């Protein structure tokens, strides 16, 4: 049985292995001139199950992106340990792909070259490289745009290119930092459907950071709710959705119940975070 089918069957049985683990992770930033050191995050404990779709929601400035940086090895924690597939994270581990909120396409390369750029570091034959690019182009609906440059594409299409560039590396953990943040509501819903389809097809684990409670509930198996700074998990909800799902689950009464439940936890934290930001501004 290959890795992908194992992940899928593990999802179905609920006996999922742990792919990434954060234990007692904190992050402090040194004091700026005349200010106190900033305790931005933690302590955070989290176990990501193989093949699950996990989302994080929290108030602006609570440390979600800091959490992403630590999980992906882009920056180290101040204290605690972060592991991926049982190994301590030092730098970005092999098998982790990241999609950022900002447009990260390379404007000097066309779509096809953007995708194959992601494969440079992998020892692949030219044939395999081309096959992977073709597959990613097909999955993301970019076949007709392979020769287009990013400046010729809409924001949504450019984000598709970024997702496709991550997919070609066949990551086992896909980390997304508010990837649909700059898109309109309808495009966000449709991109969410695309993401769910990709998640089902690849069997990868997804770690999804978002501001949107709706998006988190619609997409995820599990939602982690973060507190105001320093961000910690104050709640962890299982959504209970079937694996085969899409954006139409927003019409399900269960969807409203879950979003209400999360907002109940989050409202006070969002107010507290606003107060913190006001104090800093003053």
């Amino acid at each position, binding site marked *: 049985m290959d890795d992908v089918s194992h992940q899928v069957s593990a999802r179905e049985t609920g006996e999922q292995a742990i792919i990434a683990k954060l234990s007692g992770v904190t992050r402090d930033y040194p004091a700026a001139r005349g200010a106190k050191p900033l305790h931005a995050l933690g302590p955070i404990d989290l176990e990501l199950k193989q093949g699950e779709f996990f989302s994080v929601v929290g108030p602006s400035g609570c440390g979600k992106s800091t959490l992403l940086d630590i999980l992906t090895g882009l920056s180290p924690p101040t204290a605690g340990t972060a592991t991926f597939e049982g190994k301590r994270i030092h730098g970005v581990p092999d098998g*982790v792909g990241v999609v*950022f909120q900002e*447009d*990260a396409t390379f404007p*000097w390369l066309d779509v096809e070259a953007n995708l194959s750029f992601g494969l*440079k*570091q992998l020892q692949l034959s030219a044939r395999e490289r081309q096959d992977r690019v073709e597959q990613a182009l097909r999955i993301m609906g970019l076949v007709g745009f392979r020769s287009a440059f990013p400046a010729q594409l809409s924001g949504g299409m450019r984000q598709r290119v970024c997702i496709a560039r991550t997919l070609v590396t066949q990551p086992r953990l896909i980390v997304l930092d508010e990837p649909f943040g700059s898109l309109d509501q309808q495009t966000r819903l449709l991109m969410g459907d695309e993401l769910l389809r990709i998640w089902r097809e690849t069997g990868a684990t997804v770690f999804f950071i978002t501001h949107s409670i709706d998006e988190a509930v619609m997409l995820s198996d599990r939602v982690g709710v973060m507190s105001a700074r320093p961000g910690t998990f104050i709640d962890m909800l299982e959504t209970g959705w079937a694996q085969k799902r899409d954006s139409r689950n927003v019409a399900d009464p269960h969807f409203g119940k879950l979003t209400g439940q999360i907002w109940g936890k989050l409202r006070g934290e969002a107010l507290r975070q606003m107060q913190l930001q006001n104090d800093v501004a003053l």
Partner: protein
Amino acid sequence: MRPPGLLAALIVFGAIGLLETACQTGLLQHSVVLPPSEIAASLWNILQSGAFNRAIFLTLSNIFITAALAIFFGFVVGVLLHSVSYLRAGLEPFLASYYAIPTFIFYPVFIVLFGVGSASIIAISVLLAIVAMITATLSGLDRIPIVLRKTAKVMRLNTLETAVSILLPSALPYLVTGARLAIAYAFIGVIASEFILSGQGVGYAISYAYNNFDNQTMYGLILLIILIVVGTNMLLDAFDRRQPTQTARNR
């Protein structure tokens, strides 16, 4: 030809036509301005006779060397300043006010250092051109989106791969602009130095013709310089427009 290009051509040919008419009707005296048709004929004679070939070659060589040195060292210094923040903090005020200093006042210093001739002209012209390249390099490197540096880390590129594959292409539009400015300043620096301070080159030949009331040669050589500058600029512009980042903007 696109409408803006057509308009530009109309403006140029209209101005030439007006000047020709003004000269031919005596509105402008022949001893002051020659009609464009006569200037063009004069240039043709200059090129055919080969009398100024040595001066033309010398001037173009000096411009090429100046531009190459200014672009190369301007880029290197720009990268260095971008990497060493305290050095940049110390030098940036000087860079900001650099073009307030008339660079040509340093010519005596360069004569002492390099002697009379091309070396001094190149030195003073590099001094004029290099800062444009330094500031363009700094702007280009400053504007590389942080997300692209993060993407390089995610792709596990090493420092050299990041610089060559991501940072340099990302900053390229600014570097091209800097190079264009450096080339323009190289033309200005070399021709002006020859005109005022030298005994050789096209700048000196224009000055010599002017002092001897030789309008035919003076205007012919002026036209030559204008054509070379415009031609170079059009080539650089065509290269600039071919950059993928410019494609959508130009549509």
